[in-house]
């Protein structure tokens, strides 16, 4: 039983990353909390990870705002059109 609760730092940080996307199971989270008791490094990683998630969320919002204007240039489309017409005969 106790062996099952014992995880490595690699496993702990993996769970930590998954939980940033709401993807860690309840049992995983318990294992993580137990790991934190003995491992301050992973506990710090976890705290920083929350900040990074916030940072990436801001990035996501910024990018999505600009996304609708992403397109090929007029010239690029014209080149494509010519190439396409050659094929479409």
């Amino acid at each position, binding site marked *: 039983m106790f062996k099952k609760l014992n995880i*490595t730092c*690699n496993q702990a940080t*993996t769970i930590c*990353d998954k939980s940033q996307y709401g993807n860690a199971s309840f049992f995983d989270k318990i294992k993580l909390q137990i790991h934190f008791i003995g491992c301050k490094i992973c506990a710090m990683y976890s705290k*920083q990870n929350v900040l990074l998630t916030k*940072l990436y969320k801001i990035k*996501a919002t910024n990018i999505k705002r600009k*996304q609708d204007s992403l397109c090929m240039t007029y010239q690029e489309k014209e080149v494509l059109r010519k190439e396409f017409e050659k094929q479409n005969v």
Partner: protein
Amino acid sequence: MSSPSPITHSLDPAKWIDNYSDYLFRYTIIRINDHEISKDLVQETFFSGLKSAKNFEGKATERTWLISILKRKIIDHYRKTNSKKGQAEVRMNFYNDGENEGDWIEQRVPQSWDNEVEKKLENTELQYQIDLCIEKLPKKYAMVFRMKTIQEIDTEIICKELDISSSNLWVIIHRARMQLRKCLEENWFNN
């Protein structure tokens, strides 16, 4: 009992560029994040579409059909970047064998950050730094990370689109976040 006759769609290649090039381009650049490659994949999609137009059965709309071709191009691209030699190196953060297996490698241990980090999150330069750090990831890591974290696409959809398992996806996300964290720490958060 006769089944209702389904609507059959038809193809009109002469209008593809006007009608779908922006849509397909956006779909691609969101995933690939490279203007030139995205442009090429859109072109290849149209060409492949022309070649296989005779196989079009009219069950899907023209747009859905073109997207299904594009998706295959994106998977091919993903596989190519996967197998290319000389791709960015992934640094190990944990011992992978011996009695310390799974423990932090000392030089890779996270450092503490200054207390002001939270106030800096909206900083424009920091936002730009994220891009620089993502660029340093192996291409397939960058692609999965962007799709999951920046585009917030569902795990199942990403796995299906890139033909990877979900455990594979989480390993990639884990390694990508590790590496990004280190890169941001070295360039921004160092205490």
